[in-house]
């Protein structure tokens, strides 16, 4: 049986079928998932090999064609695109379609100021949104309650990837409130909003760790404690490093959420993603980051990225994302991490679980969250008269 061929024979999309069946796929034996992933990634690889002259040349240099991908073990042969390529002046080479077919450009800007721009066509956006919503539903089961968004409205930063992705949760909540406006965040106002929702809605907080940490620090300094609701979630994305380079300790963060927000620490859920990929790895209640079943992660030897390391060993994270049609979604990131050795999770799901460790030493510090933090710090500093510090800064 070839699932991809069978689904295509009915005129259906294999990728959409996988996304809509992800709950079932999370329950399949790992070997079965690998077989299906291989089929779907091979299909996508063939597409880019045919449509993208630049990528085809890369493949020819590596002596790889779609005919060489016949098993899960062959996936490593598929050439990867270093993520820095998305920042280069000739990034038009990455496109497997015409620019006129591109519907949306999304960006992430690091501390160098040069943005990484990902260009997506209509079908890729369909897959990306289907996949992200499905993963939110799978792991958060959001269908009601309210979301306090500790990030700016998308209209203020419409192309910033992190904001766009977090904002997708808005459609699942009964109501939301953006607490970062005009690049400024007032924690006291956030506290008041949480208090005003008490007893009316299940309250959830969504945003990058640094802003939630800022809220927590303000609550500590002012001895404010709130008890959120039994099912409240804190959903984070954007990394745990601050613009200053200081890292927010995850264990401390969880403990502070429990003490000052009255949260079950298991309901603090971090996510991993990058603007160039259409996927999010989302933490389950065991705080294990699960990859979507249609995405494969290969961890590479930092000294030779052509070599794969075993599960449990640290290395450079490479993503194989078959939902990308506008450019090959085979991305060698600048992130260090490892795949857990046990493909079975205590939460009952099966599949790859990613542990993110850090960025590769020597690469540019930067992501949407760090850039947002930088803007907010700069903006709030400018608003300070002389040396006066506003009450919410310095936390």
């Amino acid at each position, binding site marked *: 049986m070839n699932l991809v061929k069978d689904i295509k024979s009915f005129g259906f999309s294999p990728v959409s079928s996988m996304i809509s069946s992800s709950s079932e796929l999370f329950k399949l034996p790992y070997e079965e998932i690998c077989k299906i992933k291989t089929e779907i990634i091979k299909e996508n690889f063939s597409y880019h090999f045919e449509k993208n002259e630049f990528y085809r040349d890369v493949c020819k240099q590596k002596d790889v064609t779609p005919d060489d991908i016949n098993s899960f073990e062959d996936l490593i042969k598929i050439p990867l695109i270093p993520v820095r390529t998305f920042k280069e002046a000739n990034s038009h080479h990455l496109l497997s379609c015409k620019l*006129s077919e591109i519907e949306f450009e999304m960006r992430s800007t690091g501390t*160098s*100021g040069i943005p990484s721009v990902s260009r997506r066509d209509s079908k890729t956006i369909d897959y990306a949104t289907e996949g992200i919503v499905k993963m939110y539903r799978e792991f958060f089961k959001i269908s009601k309650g309210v979301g306090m968004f500790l990030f700016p409205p998308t209209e203020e930063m419409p192309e910033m990837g992190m904001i766009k992705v977090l904002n997708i949760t808005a459609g699942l909540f009964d109501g939301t409130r953006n607490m970062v406006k005009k690049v400024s965040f007032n924690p006291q106002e956030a506290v008041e909003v949480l208090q005003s929702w008490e007893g009316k809605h299940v309250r959830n907080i969504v945003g990058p760790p640094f802003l939630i940490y800022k809220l927590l620090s303000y609550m500590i300094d002012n001895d404010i404690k709130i008890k959120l609701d039994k099912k409240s979630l804190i959903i984070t994305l954007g990394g745990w490093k601050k613009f200053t380079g200081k890292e927010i300790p995850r264990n401390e963060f969880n403990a502070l959420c429990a003490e000052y927000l009255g949260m079950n620490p298991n309901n603090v859920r971090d996510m991993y993603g990058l603007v160039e990929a259409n996927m999010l790895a989302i933490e389950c209640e065991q705080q294990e980051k699960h990859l979507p079943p249609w995405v494969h992660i290969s961890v590479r030897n930092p000294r030779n990225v052509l070599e794969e390391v075993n599960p449990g060993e640290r290395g450079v994270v490479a993503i194989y994302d078959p939902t990308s049609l506008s450019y090959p979604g085979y991305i060698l990131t600048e992130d260090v991490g490892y795949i857990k050795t046990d493909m079975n999770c205590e939460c009952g799901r099966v599949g790859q679980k990613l542990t993110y460790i850090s960025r590769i030493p020597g690469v540019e510090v930067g992501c949407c969250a760090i850039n947002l933090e930088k803007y907010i710090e700069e903006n709030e500093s400018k608003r300070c008269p002389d040396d006066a510090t506003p009450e919410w800064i310095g936390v």
Partner: protein
Amino acid sequence: MYNEIISEHFMNPRNIGELESPDYIVEVSNPICGDTVHVFLNVSPNKTITALKYLAYGCSGSIATASILSEKMINQGLHALKAFSRKDIETLLGELEPSQLHCIDFGLEVLKKCAEPELHIYEKKEFLVED
């Protein structure tokens, strides 16, 4: 999303690259969205642009704008760059969506800075790297 003029220049950029020994290097950037162009100019004694290359980063519209303007700037006197109006840029870029209109301002800024170039070398910018 993008019109045919922008699409064609983005996919087939003209004058992309760096000059080996530029007389001037002009940088135009938007600190918020990050759209950036480095224009490398050779200028004759009578203030005419004799050679031009550029490297552009950011949205496709800004990159295409740099390509479109590069064709117009070569062999022009520096003073002539000041004569380009907003309307001229609008005509050169074609119909744009609201989210793409910043390309017009970006283009005007490129022309304005290239009309009075100052720097002869890259201005190295410090940025944080991972430990």
